[in-house]
């Protein structure tokens, strides 16, 4: 509002008196101010669209059952309650599934980071027979629907347990093994990101190391990894998020020890199929409130990580040039 009145005042004072150059400058300034106003308007609007479901979940999670579907309650619940959190945590078996999720996601993200960076470096800096074909192979792993290889792989893990007695199902082992050997979730993408990144680094860095008597492996660990911190952060956070949210591979490998994502996607069925611990049935409002609270509980840990790393993450993405 003040922008417009300001402009109007300015227009009254200056426009009639001075002609020529001044009016051109004035018009330019006006356009700039309008664009700035329009930009802020758009950004706030779109931010609202993005934040809306999260805020709404937050609002519903504190509502008593009577408030959930009450159109008169817009954002602030009439009666605050933590009942939804208690119930959602119980439905998700929160403590157990949180441990499962944390163990799986962190372990897999770390291993994936390491292998993809090493592989990306190998592709970027060394010339060997079949390099192009293998790099295309790495990208092709992205294009195969995950289900294609999932079943045979699952079978081999079951066979492995059958023959050796080492438990694999319901442990992080199957997913960690895939991550360690560079065929984890979206590993092709990460290999490609590292490949692009290392290709963009100046050769002189390693040449200097070689002259000083460093072998390629030592040079990689001592020179390249410290310089790739930003890239590691990006890949780590993205892998963490994708493993955390995965409910496809995990539902297969964790039939009875479900991580949070699987627990959440099963929650609606669980509610439909059973009654509350006190014997009463779930109402529609309960279902809605518990699901939303469950979703919040599921993303809370990852949101906390994002809140801590957010500033550095956005900066890393921007300065390191994620795609070369």
């Amino acid at each position, binding site marked *: 509002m003040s922008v417009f009145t300001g402009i109007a005042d300015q227009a009254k004072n200056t426009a009639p008196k001075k002609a020529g150059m001044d009016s051109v400058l004035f018009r330019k300034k006006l356009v700039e101010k309008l664009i700035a106003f329009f*930009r802020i308007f*758009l950004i706030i609007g*779109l*931010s609202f*669209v*993005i934040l*809306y*479901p999260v805020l709404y*979940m937050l609002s519903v999670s504190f509502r008593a059952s009577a408030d959930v579907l009450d*159109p008169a309650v*817009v*954002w602030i619940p009439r009666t605050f309650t933590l009942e939804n959190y208690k119930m959602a945590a119980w439905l998700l078996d929160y403590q157990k599934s949180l441990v499962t999720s944390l163990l799986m996601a962190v372990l897999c993200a770390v291993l994936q980071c390491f*292998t*993809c960076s090493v*592989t990306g*470096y*190998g*592709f970027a800096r*060394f*010339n*060997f*027979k079949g*390099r192009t074909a*293998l790099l295309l192979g790495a990208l*092709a*792993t992205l294009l*195969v*629907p995950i*289900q*294609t*290889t*999932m*079943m*045979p*792989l699952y079978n*081999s893990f079951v066979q492995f347990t059958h023959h050796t007695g080492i438990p694999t199902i319901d442990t992080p082992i199957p997913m960690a093994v*895939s991550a*360690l*050997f*560079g*065929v984890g979730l979206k590993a092709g993408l990460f290999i490609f990101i590292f490949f692009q990144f290392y290709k963009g680094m100046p050769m002189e860095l390693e040449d200097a190391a070689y002259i000083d008597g460093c072998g*390629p492996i030592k040079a*990689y660990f001592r020179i390249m990894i410290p310089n790739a911190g930003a890239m590691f952060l990006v890949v780590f956070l993205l892998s963490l*998020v994708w493993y*955390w*949210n995965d*409910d*496809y591979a995990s539902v297969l490998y964790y039939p009875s020890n479900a991580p949070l*994502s699987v627990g*959440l*996607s099963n929650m*609606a069925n669980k509610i439909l199929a059973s009654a509350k611990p006190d014997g009463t049935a779930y109402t529609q409002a309960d279902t*809605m409130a518990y699901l939303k609270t*469950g*979703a919040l509980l599921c*993303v809370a840990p*990852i949101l906390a990580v994002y809140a801590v790393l957010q500033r550095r993450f956005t900066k890393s993405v921007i300065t390191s*040039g*994620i*795609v070369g």
Partner: protein
Amino acid sequence: MAKRRLSYEKKKSAYGYIFISLWLIGFVALFLVPFINAIIYSFNELDIEPGQLHMTYVGWENYLRAFTQDADFLPVFTGTLTAAVVQTPVTVLFSLFVAILLNANFRGQGIARAIFFLPVVIMSGPVVAVMNYDVFFNTLVSGDRASAMLTITSTQDILQTLGVNPLIADYIVNITNQLFNLSWSSGIQILIFIAGLQGIPTTYYEVAQIEGATGWEIFWKVTLPSIGPMILVNVFYTLYDGLLTGGEMFGKISHHLGNLEFAYASALSLMCFIVWGLLIAIVYKIVSSWVSVK
């Protein structure tokens, strides 16, 4: 001298293999072997007993089943394909637009970026399913003013009471509904575009300004050509995301796996792999001929 150089080259190529060895083992043992297994499965009928598999060769039967017996297959398959193809340019344009908005200097830039990247963190997985469930749920309950902005009925009502032609109202409603999905599915793309925009040397803009180019001309002649590679990456990523992780076909294959129809599921996913791989390759070729890739 020549001999020494050769040995140096050989040594370097050996190091190349060492660096990719972990991945190479995984690629062969955990990708190629199961992949070939899946190909074999798709030509057989599987009988699963605890601990072992019985296979009988049936030729192309599993593939034919998709076209002759499974009434779901073609609609789901083409639906996924068209959805991804239609969604890709919209998403890429939207994310470019948002990236340009966010790239300018303004107060609260950090907060705005944090908000726009938020979907990257909770984008995938069952959380979004719960959120979508909400949006539909609210429509059904209707009258919930908190969600009035995002529901189909209420926006339409507002527009119609304002006297807007129903056809145009429909179109606007479609866009506003899309806006929600768009802003939630273009986090990565925005990120990639911002990275690209930041990489353009400021000197280019200075030169253009000195030469008297308008903002419009600068966008077409400086900005757009400079982020060609990012457009390519984003087209690739959006298409990939729409086909493989977001598509209906994914659910269908999972459904058949859940029914223990491994052979049929393998046949389906192999067909998807071939068609989608081809599609992505073709689109990649076309787009890369438009944008200049250094």
